[in-house]
């Protein structure tokens, strides 16, 4: 066997591609499912926290800041292990899927809260003055004047952060969520061949490359706002 054939045999073996394609495809489905639930939960929770923070209630603010700092400072895998292995011992059993969803949603919410809050505070004070001088109340000012501008400022960092967190769904393989990486690694250990792993890697590229390119477009589209 020459080098090329050996390479194909180890990394792209046609028989194994056919054998494990269904597993990888089901992994893709799981990854998309969990990524979209995380994005939805994280964005909603993060924006809500930023809005609560804008009320400037001292106790709520301190709690939100602590939450955001802790979840941004500690690697997500630490929380995944903590929740997945720790909670059953105190009588709370969550599925691996639920653990991954919970942890990554909270991490995303922490970043979203900080990004949106930064957006809110960077809207010029004169905008509040103008809105209040025409009799708009706090809630209307926030919703119709401040938030549209704050979110617009926040779109590039929100996009890149959301992409980064959804890629973390691969952490699910550590606790057995049947997403792409998990399917690929177990297929590698069954088949003793790197082909399923290459399939998994390619699946990620197919899934995330368009998202990354979209993120790059968003960066340039909204870049003029940041200067």
């Amino acid at each position, binding site marked *: 066997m020459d080098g090329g054939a050996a390479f194909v045999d180890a990394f792209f073996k046609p028989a194994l591609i056919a054998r494990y394609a269904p597993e990888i495809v089901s992994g893709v489905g799981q990854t998309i499912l969990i990524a979209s639930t995380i994005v939805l939960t994280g964005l909603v929770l993060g924006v809500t926290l930023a809005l609560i923070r804008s009320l400037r209630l001292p106790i709520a603010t301190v709690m939100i800041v602590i939450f955001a700092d802790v979840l941004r400072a500690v690697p997500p895998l630490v929380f995944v292990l903590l929740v997945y292995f720790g909670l059953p011992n105190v009588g709370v059993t969550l599925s691996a899927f639920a653990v991954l969803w919970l942890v990554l949603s909270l991490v995303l919410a922490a970043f979203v809260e900080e990004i949106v809050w930064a957006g809110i505070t960077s809207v*010029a004070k*004169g*905008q509040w*003055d*103008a*809105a*209040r*001088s*025409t*009799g*708009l*109340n706090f809630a*209307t000012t926030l919703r*119709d*004047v401040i938030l*549209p*501008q704050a979110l*617009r400022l926040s779109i590039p960092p929100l996009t890149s952060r959301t992409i980064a967190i959804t890629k973390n769904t691969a952490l699910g393989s550590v606790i057995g969520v049947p997403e792409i990486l998990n399917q690929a690694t177990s297929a590698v250990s069954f088949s003793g061949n790197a082909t399923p792993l290459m399939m998994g890697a390619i699946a990620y590229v197919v899934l995330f490359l368009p998202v990354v390119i979209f993120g790059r477009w968003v960066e340039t589209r909204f870049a003029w706002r940041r200067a």
Partner: protein
Amino acid sequence: MTTDQPILEVRGLQKQYGRHVALAGIDLKIAAGELVFVIGPSGSGKSTLLRCLNRLEEPDHGQILFEGQDMSGKKNDLNLLRQRVGMVFQAFNLYPHLTALGNVTLAVRKVLRKSREAADAIGLAALRQVGLVEKAGSYPNELSGGQQQRVGIARALALEPKVVLFDEPTSALDPELVRSVLEVMRDLKRAGMTMVVVSHEMKFAREAADRVIFMAEGAIVEQGPPEEIFSHAREPRTRAFLSQVGA
């Protein structure tokens, strides 16, 4: 100028920032239809006074009376006072994400609770009043500074206020754009609008104001008709200030 009750009155207004006294007890009556010009060195409390008049700034002590009714204190509907006392800002403070018409109609829809159609009609009328009806669909960054400030004025007018406060409305503008804004203010004066103006446009004050107030260190030093203040000021501080600004 009239014996009627003043449209806006403040009594004993005080405001302090830390140890800095911004307003040291101001008493002031403004009659309906009057154009009051407030001048003075920077830091004299002019802008703070103006911002207290519609309670963008909360005074520490004192009363604000609108048509004889006390508007100070927590119980009062702030937003009602603000509907009746409009404000125009030095930096325009237009909403960058809304068109000129959107800027003008937002409060009409949300505060006066008009339908979109009714609000648009009111907004277009206000834009017509400042000569910008053809710019209704433009965003602030597509307008010149003078045009932006006129949209700012239209935004205040759309709520049909009884009084409009102008906080240095032309000082962020290039000289050639100032005229169009002053023109709009002159029209408003002719239409009988009550206006309180903080500005350095002394020439405009001389020809359009009914009364000029000179403030320093948080207090009213001297006030009177423009002719009297500009040509026969009694107080040395007033004279020094006026010669400094070349009026």
